[in-house]
Structure formats: structure tokens, C-alpha cells
């Protein structure tokens, strides 16, 4: 049996609603992945440290508050400080289309807006996760 893909689902910033994140976490679990969920109000430092210790393959960021343009690049900066690590980073939540190009430039591989299916997200992960 091959090693399960390890995913961290994290909610940076101050929004308090995490139903979307929980549904994604559960869906990816059902797709055979080991999903770590850390709850709401995570700082970029907490997310990067957790990513390092848990040796994750994928980071899924969920955000509804509108602070993505500040928080995502900061998380990417800290993630890149982690040695010897290639993590696939994806995002979801309330993110205006006009913000996509800059976020992708910062290293977010794909953004899944409301209405995206679990199947779509799971197959994106399986096709794009870095083989280690």
C-alpha cells in the first residue's frame, strides 16, 4: 500500500466560520488522504510550523475574511523557509477573481471558489502533488 497523501487544512486570519473547511477536510479523508485540521484563527507562523512538523504534501488554505492578499504571501514566505520541502498549496473561500493572478504569482497553485466539488479538488491534488 502506498503512503497516504498528507494534507493540512488551515484557516488563517480572523474569520470564525469553518463549515467549508470541515467539509473539505472530510471529503479529502474519504478520498483516502490523511487530513490534519487545526481549527480557526491560525497565524501564518502557526501554519508554517505545523506544515514543517507534520511533513505535509498539501496545504489547503480556507479564508472568508478578505485578508488573503496579505496573509497568503506571508504564509508562502514562511513555508519557503522550511528546508527540504515541496508543498502543493491550494486555496478556497471568498476570493475575488481579480485577486487570482497575484496569489498564483505568490505560489498558490489553484483556487477553488464556492461551488467547487470535492472530486474536482481531490483529483487536482492527486494529479499535482509533488512526488517525493
Amino acid at each position, binding site marked *: *500500500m*502506498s*503512503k*497516504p497523501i*498528507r494534507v493540512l487544512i488551515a484557516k488563517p486570519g480572523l474569520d470564525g466560520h469553518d463549515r467549508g473547511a470541515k467539509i473539505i*477536510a*472530510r471529503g*479529502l*479523508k*474519504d*478520498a*483516502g*488522504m*490523511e*487530513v*490534519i*485540521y*487545526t*481549527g480557526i*484563527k*491560525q*497565524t501564518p*507562523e*502557526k501554519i508554517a*510550523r*505545523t506544515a*514543517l*512538523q*507534520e*511533513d505535509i504534501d498539501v496545504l489547503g488554505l480556507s479564508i472568508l475574511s478578505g485578508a488573503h492578499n496579505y496573509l497568503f504571501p506571508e504564509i508562502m514566505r514562511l513555508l519557503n523557509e*522550511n*528546508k*527540504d*520541502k515541496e508543498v502543493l498549496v491550494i486555496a478556497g473561500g471568498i476570493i475575488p477573481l481579480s485577486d487570482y493572478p497575484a496569489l498564483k504569482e505568490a505560489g498558490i497553485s489553484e483556487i477553488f471558489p464556492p461551488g467547487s466539488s470535492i472530486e474536482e479538488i481531490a483529483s487536482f491534488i492527486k494529479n499535482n502533488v509533488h512526488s517525493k
Partner: protein
Amino acid sequence: MIDSLTNGVKNQEEYAIAKSITVLEDESNDLSVSLRKEIYKTNSQTYVLGITGSPGAGKSTLISSLVNHLDNQMKIGIISIDPSNKYSGGALLGDRIRMSNLFTKKNIFIRSMSNRGIFGGLNKSIFDVVQLFSFAKYDLVIVETIGVGQNEIDISEIADTVLVISAPESGDSIQIIKAGLMEIADIYVINKADLSGSDKMEFLLKDNIQTNTKNNWTPRIIKIQANSGKNVDGLLELTLEHKDFLTQNNQLFSRRKLLLQKNIRESVIKKVTNNYIDPKIQSKEFKDSIKNVTCGKISFDETVNNLVHEIEKDIKNEN
């Protein structure tokens, strides 16, 4: 590759420890054999504190609270195990939610693991992971079991001190006695002590506490509130008392020797099964001969004995 990894672990570099756990968990990884060989080349052993109890009793919250009472110079590894899904093989690992205040503490390393389908409340590579922290010269390892309640007793084989935690609201004192958790507790923790029913629970547990005949330790009972930290310092004192007791009686790490023995036994069984037993059982010749058992030409016991003789011969011939 292996040298950079083991040197990294020796220097307590987190990327190396994280990567090593991934390797140890994955038997198909070529590095796992050589890494295992390296990490057992050490005399240092880290004290292991095991925490078990039913879901929602407060295991993760207690860990968070305990660690906040400890010296922040201590290097502490926390391993939290959650169940994997039998069908998909996936898992939702949520123990970190209650430990959020520890995420950025420099001296704390937290790793979430799924049990990867193994019964007994632990992941089968847990022994190697504990050894990894010993190799890295960590001061303390805390292991949190999955918490399904009735098959958690493996923790008593790896931990030097076992805390069994429960809450009065669950009304599960009888469940705990049934589940065999009473027998493995070195310290019995009643959490959420502010709730009604905690006195009654303490009374019932006191009636059922027995001195461990193997080492003469009488399990202690303590009431705490993990979320507010109330009486957690008292629990810490009891834990140290148990550790001192083990040290004075030369019993520290003794459970781990037994577990090592058990693990070696299991690995031998697996190898003998794969190399000798299964090829015989699955051979066409044997399958054809089974009808002789069903029609009474040869008895079940004779069949078993014949097979054992054949396997013994095979092993002898190979040498």
C-alpha cells in the same frame, strides 16, 4: 541521504525529525530499514507519558495544559493518534485543534498520526517513533491514543506512566471498568471536575482501584479541570512521583523491553508466514488435499501436524 537525515535528527532539526517519522511510518520506503538501524544505536531513552480515555474526555486539552506547566527548556515530543477510515484509508486528524497555543513553542514538536488500520489504539510504527525521539535526546514524549475506549490497552506497553482520563458527564465509569482501562491506569484523571457527578465518580473509582500486583504501585485518582488548568500541577506531581517510583524500583523503560520482545515476535511470525506457511497453504497440492479433511479421511489435527512437520523440514533443509 541517510547520514544527512540522522545528523539532522541528532541536531534536533525539525525537518529531519518530521521526514524521519514519514519514513518510519512507510514500510515500503527503502530508507526505513537503514534509518531504523541507526536510531537503535543509542543508549539514551526518553521517558514516555501515555494518555488514554474515551472521546471527548479531554486528552488533547490535558496535554496542552500539562505542557504549559512544564519548563520551556524541556524538549517535548507529542504524538497524537486518531483513527483511520477502514474503507478509504484516509483519516481526519483533529487533535491539534485543542493544542493551538503550543504550535509556535520552540521546545515542542507535535505530530498527528492515523492508526493506519491497526487495532489497539496506536500506530504500529509508534515504537520506532519513540525510539527516534530517544535518539534525538528529547526529554519527554507524550503519546495520545485514539480514544475509542475499548481497545486502548497497547498504550500500557509503550508508556512508562499511563494516565487514564474520563469526564463525569459521560457517565462512563462502568464502561471504563468494563474496558480494562482500570488495569492499565497508573494515575486516574477525572477531568471536568466542576461538573456534577465527579464526586460520585471518584467514589466509584476508589472502590475499584487495585494495587498492581506486578510492581506494587497503587494507582492514584485525581480531579482536575484541564481547560482552566485547575489542579494540573497536582497531576504533574503525581506523575513525577510515579516516575520516581519506577526509577527506584529499576522499572523505568522496563515495559518497553517487553514490547520490543513482542514486536520481534510479531516480525518473526510475519516472515515465517510469508516465507514458509503461506506458500504451503496456498499450493494447489494442499488445496486439493483439503477434501480429505471434509470427507473424514484425515483429521483436522493430523493435517495441522503434518503441515508443521513439513515446514520444520523446509527450514532445516535451508540451513
